[in-house]
């Protein structure tokens, strides 16, 4: 079943066409990667899918229902969550609390209820803490649970953001350059994590520059150049496609083939 249908999406910032006629579908349970040179519009596309940018044209359908232009929190409620290219963790909170915010949709978040703490509040809190700790453990960060997130190492913050996004129980998780700035060991760790998530039935969409990672885990790859879809197919086919090499490395190398 197609989890996400994107039809003819266009976004322009003051005359500049960031995205133009972008269309594709993401099937449930697969890892869908989006690659392309810098400035191709990858992050803008993620912003459209998560409600941060309103498309000037086109439609987005998620599990069959129309969601174009819906605000981020409503998209999160129906199961779309993401991480960010430049980290957006909550630095003043502990790692555990960061993940607990991820559970916002599963918890009773009335302010009055929070202030009056009716019976059962402590139990709910304990459940929330335990679940969050499990998620931290899943990304190997149980040991930093009580440390302020702002003080953690960059690689650890990256994984914390993934754990936090997972906490909202997404059906589709959009990861914006999860391996950026990571050393090979950390990238391998993320590689294992992505495959584990896939096994758990979470559909993933990836924006990534690390070709080794992309070709390794992806079921489908879409190449975005200057806001337009160049090609979308199996990883192997994309790798051999001359247009892709040309787009990345310039025409001089295209003739020689990979």
């Amino acid at each position, binding site marked *: 079943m197609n989890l996400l249908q994107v039809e003819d999406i266009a976004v322009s910032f003051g005359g500049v066409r960031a995205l133009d006629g972008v269309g594709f579908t993401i099937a449930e349970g697969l890892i869908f990667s989006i690659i392309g040179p810098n400035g191709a519009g990858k992050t803008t596309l993620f912003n459209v899918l998560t*409600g941060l940018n309103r498309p000037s044209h086109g439609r987005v359908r998620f599990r069959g229902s129309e969601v174009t232009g819906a605000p981020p929190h409503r998209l*999160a409620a129906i199961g779309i969550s993401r991480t960010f290219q430049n980290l957006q*963790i909550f630095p003043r*909170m502990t790692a555990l609390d960061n993940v607990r*915010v991820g559970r916002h949709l599963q918890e009773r978040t009335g*302010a009055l*209820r929070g*202030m009056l703490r009716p019976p059962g509040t402590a139990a709910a809190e304990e459940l929330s803490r335990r679940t969050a700790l499990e998620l931290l453990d899943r990304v190997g960060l149980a040991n930093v649970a009580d440390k302020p997130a702002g003080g953690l190492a960059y690689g650890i913050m990256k994984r914390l953001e993934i754990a936090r996004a997972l906490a909202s129980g997404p059906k589709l998780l959009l990861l914006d350059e999860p391996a950026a700035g990571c050393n090979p060991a950390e990238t391998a760790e993320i590689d294992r994590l992505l495959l584990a998530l896939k096994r758990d039935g979470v559909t993933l969409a990836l924006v990534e520059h690390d070709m080794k990672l992309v070709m390794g885990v992806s079921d489908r790859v879409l190449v975005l150049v200057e806001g337009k879809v160049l090609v979308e197919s199996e990883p192997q086919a994309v790798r051999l496609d001359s247009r892709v090499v040309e787009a990345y490395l310039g025409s001089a190398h295209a003739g020689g083939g990979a």
Partner: protein
Amino acid sequence: MLARLGPPAAIAAVILLAPLLFQSGYHFRIGALVWINALAVIGLNVLMGLAGQVSLGHAGFFGIGAYAAAVLPARYGLHPLAATAAGAVLCAAVAFTVGRPILRLKGHYLAVATLGLGMLVAMVLTNEVWLTGGPDGMPAPRPDLGGWRISGPETWYWISGTVLVLGVLLAQNLRISPAGLALGALHDSEVAAGTLGVDVARSKLVAFVVSAVYGSVAGSMLAFLNGHVTPDRAGFLQSIEFVTMAVLGGLGSMIGSVAGAAVLVVIPQVLTFFHEYEHLMLGVLVILIMVLLPSGVVPALSSLLARRRKE
């Protein structure tokens, strides 16, 4: 558990112990003024410290609360305590309706919008003489509870102290609740909070309404303590004093709000020894505290003590 109940317990302890040092009704009045200001500042702290939304119009709600406590009993025969509740409901309604458009603004623009809101309230209280008695203010009733006439600084010291401890407890509960976590999240990154399912606009509005109710109840108590209300309690100088108290004490720290209120209520009483140099000394003190303890009196001292204990 202790992190949640620590502040209310600590403040309750000070409220109980301080009177041992008091020698006259004047000291009780100063104590009551500190607790009343602290309650308003705790509300502002929920909005500024927790949710990160600046407000230079907090005294507007303080003024509405004070005048509700004075006008409703006088004109409509409402019991003073019912008038206090009505004032809080009125402030919540005003905050709810005005909050939605205002809270779309950020930083200095939000500051000026809230400043304007506070000044509008002060203007209405000054000009609607038929209702509020005009710039010279009007008397406020002395509430009675089943025959017991509540008046006198000592009585109001204990009442305002009790309400403050309750206010701190509720604020602490909010802070560690899912709703409080959501507020802390949107303070750090509205974008990220949104993608995790937090309705950012609604959460900010909730924080604004909560801060308005705290301001209103504090205003009503001041009206009963003084027996008289004047429009300058809603003016921008009072708003700026609340913000100064919140920042001096330490944004985000409940005990900080109480400490900030204590500094700006007690110190000027001490500075009267300097007569005409009074304002100069207060200004120097504000600068010194902010330069030496930029995170605020309480957070800075806490980390200082914590660091010394580690060595």
